[in-house]
């Protein structure tokens, strides 16, 4: 299913995206592009708009303005629904079904032919290393196993683009390393992965980073690029430097004629 044609065209193109949720502007006008076949880390503190952006990419978020294109088609269009896999933050599987029953259903829904369903279920179970648990009820699994079932459900049908919302949150270090190894293998196979995290040290696992804060992109670069431009030694330090830079830029914009450090005393007291 993975195609390499038109590699130059980005997998995801977001242009002027504006989202308002509950009266609050979550994304004020986001523009970014995600190249094909790469592992992209979407990093930023919780509440910065990562989940909202991902919901836009998979086409379940009401949008106030702007456009989102995935693989050259408008996000959420019918043709994309079997080419894009989505992992929500919570394990979105049926707890009262076995792992196999869950995956068989999702495989059928994404259009795996009847005679190929069993093989496809076995394939994704192998990817997330759950073959021996296939007959277990999802509700009886540990948190780590459950999140791997949910990931397996996103992998059925071999989607070309994977949108994974905090897939490693709350997992132990060994499991996190294993999951990133899976993501890396998929990217090497030509799949585009957009993986969100609020743990900055996961940045080293990604080809490129999108650092987000308050609905805007602070940086869209490789880890090396981000470190070099900020003079930092790790992603967290770089992120903080970028936040400080953005804050002072915002201050200068709102008080253009007053240089920082020379504020009139009456303003400092307000």
């Amino acid at each position, binding site marked *: 299913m993975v195609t390499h044609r038109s590699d130059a065209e980005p997998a995801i193109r977001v242009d002027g995206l504006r989202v308002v949720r509950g009266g609050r502007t979550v994304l004020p006008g986001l523009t970014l592009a995600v190249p094909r076949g790469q592992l992209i880390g979407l990093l930023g503190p919780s509440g910065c708009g990562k989940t909202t952006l991902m919901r836009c990419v998979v*086409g379940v*978020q*009401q949008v106030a303005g702007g456009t989102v294109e995935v693989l050259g088609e408008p996000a959420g269009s019918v043709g994309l*629904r079997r080419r894009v896999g989505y992992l929500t933050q919570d394990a979105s599987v*049926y707890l009262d*079904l076995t792992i196999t029953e869950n995956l068989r259903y999702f495989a059928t*829904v994404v259009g795996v032919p009847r005679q190929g369903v069993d093989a496809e279920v076995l394939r994704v179970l192998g990817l997330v290393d759950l073959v021996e648990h296939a007959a277990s009820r999802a509700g009886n699994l540990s948190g780590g196993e459950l999140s791997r079932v949910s990931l397996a459900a996103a992998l059925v049908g071999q989607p070309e683009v994977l949108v994974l919302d905090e897939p490693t949150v709350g997992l132990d270090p060994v499991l996190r390393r294993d999951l990133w190894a899976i993501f890396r293998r998929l990217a090497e196979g030509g799949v585009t992965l957009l993986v969100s995290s609020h743990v900055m040290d996961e940045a080293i696992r990604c080809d490129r980073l999108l650092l987000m804060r308050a609905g805007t992109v602070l940086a869209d670069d490789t880890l090396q690029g981000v470190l070099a431009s900020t003079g930092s030694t790790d992603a967290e330090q770089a992120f903080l430097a970028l936040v400080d830079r953005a804050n002072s830029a915002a201050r200068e914009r709102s008080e253009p004629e007053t240089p920082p450090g020379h504020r009139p005393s009456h303003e400092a007291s307000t």
Partner: protein
Amino acid sequence: MSVRLTVATSTRVLQQIRHDRRTLALLLIVPCVLMGLLAWIYQNTPVFDAIGAPLLGMFPFLIMFLVTSIATLRERQSGTLERLLTMPLGKADLIGGYALAFGLLAALQAVIASSFALLVLGLDVAGAAWLLILVAVVDCLLGTALGLFLSAFATTEFQAVQFLPAFVLPQFLLCGLLVPRDQLPDVLRWISDLLPLSYAVDAMQTITIDANGTASVLGDVAIVLGFVIALVVLGAATLRRRTP
């Protein structure tokens, strides 16, 4: 709408119920227990024969309404609905799958409860037994369809459960069981003419007293089925892929 996806969805819903043995037992046994209680409290009186059939339509209707509301709400809250809506599953496939699965359960429940009332409790009605069973099945379907439709408007379990007193009990008060519909105040009679449960109870009352009322009963059944289809279609139409 895809037949394969609708059937896959209803299979999945039935698998969920099958794993929950207690729910399955409650679904199938509770209406029989309620009918048994009813026969017992009215023993040696003609009352059971008079109201047995209408209540045989009512109990499974209530149960299926609640079960369906909670099941669809759970789908929404567990995040599986959001996952499904990003997949190539039509809204009609989802609602149709639920309607099919719970429709089958409803039919099973209605057949068991009607057979129990007729054979064990000795419920005596003027009309044919098959007609009684048919109406009981259709009433169950109505409960399912109403649950499917209304659960779209509930965002919490608290709300979903209160939809029973809010939308079902008024229908019970106006359906003609407490006061015959033609003796209701005009305004209430007009309202009762618009409510599906009124026709369900009309049909059961005709079966109770009229051996030659088959045509009238089938007319009521057609109206109730019309409501069922309209509610299922509305349920699919009000489902939104994109949410705020």
